């Protein structure tokens, strides 16, 4: 895929995040499709942080081995990324603090002379980059003014100095394509949930899910949504259960460590049949692991978390558009079937920025909760053929609504009776059968790449785009399940028809998807695993798949 890659890096606190988004927005305005990968250590100031902005004609969500531009605000940026330099890579660097070769820009002294705060170095660098890319100053200034709302004038002034000090290396061509919004996976997920009718979002901050909390808290009033940050994840999940009981659609967000604390509440949701959505943003573990990096290590945990046996829905979107859609689907189905739904994301999706097209997104399943019709005595756990009991909420006259963490009778009162215990356990599991039938009507498994290929790469979550790009060159099939529980086995088998070799690509050390497939009778022949917290490059994956191919 023809594309342009720009790496910008500096210390944490140098404004790399904002600068990379501005680069993305600048190229976005030219009609390119954008993907931004962010890499930062778990510290507020210092260290080394960088972003890679990629722009191409078609949508993407991975990065390649080399970059076309490096914008170095510190020495580490240059030293750490020498392997990304190819023959025509242009290196822009703050020559006051970085020793290098390429386009030397004395940014620190420029900023000092103008009396600006040190952080404005980032905008001065962007001015230089705009010139290097061959963009007219006016184009840059327009985007910068729209996005730099604080200290705009000093930013623009220094960007101009950077622009004037640089040279042109490239002539970027405007694409004749509509300009799309740039949205992180977390923002897309938040909007998808909101669109599907979310009433409340409750969360304790934890990377990489915190930005959902920030995004929704900032828009709570406009969306007429209750956004709450309580004392702990234990409180989060219990509050959410209370909201669900009172009739409000609620989601919570966390990472593995917070999800550990939520498991007692998750199990309660299974027993009390209270719907809720849990966003589980994966990052490397065990324990605190690498808090600001990415992994796909919680599939098995999500599948089996909580005591006892109960039905749960688990979905795993692979980019921002899928996060929007499957977030909405998870909320709708959680309410229809009155069960917990888990959305597995990871840091790469959560904090990665993607071009986002609302027109690409299908309609969610209709809202189909079963409500009590008001006749006869209300029974919260009426054992129906589908297992779904009619809903009523406190405040409704004539209904006594009792939910219970103990085994219970149809009216919600505690029981230890053997016959009723069996009956209620079967009722709860029956919902899973109905749920799977409904999932089979959705596109729960996607097939990409060369459809007739005898080799299939199976993947889930954020490795989607990496696999898609690698599959282009290798001409393999890519099969990606979006629902992982209940497993859409019929669709999976259909997607894998005619395949002689299956290779699983995962960001974990134990091949969790491969294990799940094996349990369902699908034998994976080879696994390609990454577990250092960083996404692979397309070339690295191409090579590993090629080596594994028979």
């Amino acid at each position: 895929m023809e594309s342009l890659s720009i790496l910008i890096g500096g210390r944490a606190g140098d404004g790399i995040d904002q600068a990379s988004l501005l680069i993305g927005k600048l190229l976005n305005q030219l009609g390119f499709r954008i993907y931004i990968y962010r890499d930062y250590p778990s510290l507020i100031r210092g260290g080394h942080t960088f972003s890679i902005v990629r722009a191409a004609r078609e949508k993407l969500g991975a990065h390649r081995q080399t970059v076309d531009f490096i914008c170095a605000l510190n020495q580490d940026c240059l030293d750490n990324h020498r392997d990304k330099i190819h023959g025509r890579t242009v290196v822009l660097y703050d020559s006051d603090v970085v020793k290098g070769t390429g386009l030397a820009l004395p940014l620190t002294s420029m900023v000092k002379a103008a009396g600006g705060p040190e952080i404005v170095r980032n905008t001065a660098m962007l001015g230089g980059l705009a010139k290097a890319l061959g963009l007219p100053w006016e184009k840059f200034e327009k985007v910068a003014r729209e996005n730099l709302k604080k200290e705009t004038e000093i930013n623009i002034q220094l960007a101009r100095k950077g622009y004037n000090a640089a040279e042109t290396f490239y002539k970027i061509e405007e694409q004749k394509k509509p300009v799309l919004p740039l949205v992180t996976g977390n923002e897309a997920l938040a909007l998808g949930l909101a669109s599907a009718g979310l009433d409340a979002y409750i969360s304790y901050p934890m990377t990489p899910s915190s930005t959902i909390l920030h995004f929704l808290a900032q828009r709570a009033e406009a969306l007429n949504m209750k956004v709450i940050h309580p004392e702990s994840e234990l409180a989060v999940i219990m509050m959410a259960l209370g909201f669900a009981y009172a009739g409000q659609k609620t989601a919570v967000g966390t990472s593995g460590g917070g999800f550990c604390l939520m498991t007692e509440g998750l199990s309660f949701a299974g027993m009390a049949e209270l719907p809720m959505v849990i966003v589980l943003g994966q990052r490397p573990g065990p324990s605190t692991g690498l808090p600001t990096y990415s992994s796909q290590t919680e599939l098995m945990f999500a599948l089996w978390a909580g005591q006892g046996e109960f039905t749960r829905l688990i979905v795993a979107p692979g980019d921002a558009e899928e996060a929007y859609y499957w977030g909405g689907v998870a909320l709708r189905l959680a309410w229809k079937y009155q069960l917990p739904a888990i959305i597995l994301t990871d840091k790469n999706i959560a904090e990665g920025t993607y071009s986002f097209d609302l027109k690409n997104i299908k309609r969610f399943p209709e809202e189909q909760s079963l409500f009590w019709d008001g006749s006869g005595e209300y029974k919260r756990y009426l054992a129906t053929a589908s297992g779904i009991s009619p809903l009523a909420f406190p405040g409704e006259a004539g209904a006594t609504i009792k939910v219970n963490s103990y085994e219970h009778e149809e009216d919600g009162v505690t029981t230890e009776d053997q016959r009723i215990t069996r009956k209620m356990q079967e009722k709860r599991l029956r919902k899973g059968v109905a749920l799977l039938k409904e999932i089979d009507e959705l596109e729960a498994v996607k097939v990409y790449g060369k459809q007739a290929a005898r080799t299939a790469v199976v993947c889930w979550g954020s490795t989607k785009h990496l696999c898609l790009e690698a599959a282009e060159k290798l001409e393999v099939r890519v099969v990606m399940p979006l629902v992982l529980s209940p497993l859409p086995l019929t669709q999976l088998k259909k997607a894998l028809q005619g395949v002689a070799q299956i290779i699983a690509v995962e960001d974990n050390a134990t091949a969790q998807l491969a294990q799940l497939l094996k349990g369902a009778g699908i034998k994976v022949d080879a696994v390609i695993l990454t577990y250092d917290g960083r996404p692979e490059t397309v070339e690295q994956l191409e090579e590993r798949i090629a080596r594994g191919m028979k």
Partner: protein
Amino acid sequence: MTQWCPGCGNFAILKVMQEVLAELQAEGTLLENIVLVSGIGQHAKIVDYLKVNSFYSLHGRAVAAAEGIKLANPKLKVIVFVGDGDSYGEGLEHLIFAAKRNIDLTVVVHDNRVYALTTGQYTPTSPLGYKGRSTPTGTHEHPLNPLELLLAAGATYLARGYNARTEQLKGLIKEAILHPGFALIDLLQVCVTFYNQYDHYNQRVYELTGHNPADYNEALSKIKEWDYNSDAKIALGKFYQVERSTFDSFFSGGDTVDRGQLIKTLLERMV
């Protein structure tokens, strides 16, 4: 069928609650707007024995669930029954934060100062030296004074009741329910099987009179009179009551919005 030991303090509390609910209903509160929430323990069975909306929760987590219910629908009256091990032990963080928020809940702590459901281990309010199955040579830690802790945390209504003083208890529970804010009653509820304190309490309890519940320092001084350990007089009644803005009042909900249009507008700004 109620399943408590003969002589259990919970019987009296159940009867008091039946009367409180009947009175509230007679005075115009719609029963469907009442939700009872319980933790796990002998106390928690009370929700099974009352035909009112209920949420039979988890050990320690009743208060957090109750907060969710109240925030989802602020017009509901939410009454929480918890145990002392349950709420002063496993669920203490939720209790302190609910008080800090002054969320409009009524928390009734069945404080029998022993784990009854799990057969007699010590709790956060058991006295120093209490001999239970997990502390056969006696505890080596002092009890918490829960009312002192909750006063510091920001509770706006604090009282102590006793299951053998049912008329007073009824008045306190009703008053706590009608109090707009976080109300907690530490209810001396006697466990006849594992820690029978009837004689001890009967000799020491007295009713608070001439006390100014609006005065923080006076409330603190009365609350500290008995520290759940020393052999002091035990005051029953209302220690503290003030009015302060409640957390739930900030979440009463606005007008419905066209989410579809709003999301489109938000996305347009993200180019």
